[in-house]
């Protein structure tokens, strides 16, 4: 498919477990974003990559959250020692480039994380 894919689609973790969420952006897209969306809320920015460089991680809620994009394509969001407040849908989005007049973000289907 040509869209953004994410895996797994659903993840149930026990409190304290580590989880890893994967994002495959659209081929050739330079920019990649991670968002957290709580039920009934808008997506909240977590972090942004341009190629392999993580240019903004100001939205990561704690040092338990870590993201990487080592080869500038696939990205992984890792959450260590999960807590119940981490339960949310984690959305990944990619953009062809990040410029003044062309910032369309293509979102993946999301990973719904439930922490018990």
């Amino acid at each position, binding site marked *: 498919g040509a869209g953004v894919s994410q895996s797994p689609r659903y993840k149930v973790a026990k409190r304290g477990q580590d989880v890893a969420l994967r994002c495959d952006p659209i081929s050739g897209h330079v920019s990649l974003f991670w968002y957290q969306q709580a039920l009934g*809320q*808008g*997506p909240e*920015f977590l972090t942004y990559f341009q190629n392999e460089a993580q240019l*903004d991680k*100001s939205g990561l809620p704690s040092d338990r959250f870590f993201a990487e994009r080592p080869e500038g394509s696939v990205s992984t969001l890792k959450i260590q020692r999960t807590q119940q407040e981490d339960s949310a849908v984690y*959305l990944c989005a990619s953009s062809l480039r990040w410029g*003044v*007049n062309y*910032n369309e973000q293509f979102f993946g289907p999301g990973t719904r994380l439930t922490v018990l």
Partner: protein
Amino acid sequence: GQQVMQIPQYQHVQEGEDFTTYCNSSTTLSNIQWYKQRPGGHPVFLIQLVKSGEVKKQKRLTFQFGEAKKNSSLHITATQTTDVGTYFCAGQHGYGQNFVFGPGTRLSVLP
């Protein structure tokens, strides 16, 4: 931090009625985007507005960016059941910065 507000939170309309959602920022935005998220789905890009006072139309949808670049609106004429979903605005407070999403307006259309 910088916030983007949206009103109303919910809107129920009869099919054929018009619908408008409003987006407001306390600070000037460099540009604003609108997304639609169907129930159980993911946000889908609708449009981006960059210029002060800009108005763009997509069939029954009209998007407007305020003169002061602090507010925006999305107006749907003669709603259809396919318009059901949550409409989000996302504002960028400076070029190259991340987008801040509003809380969304959930639209229900009664047939």
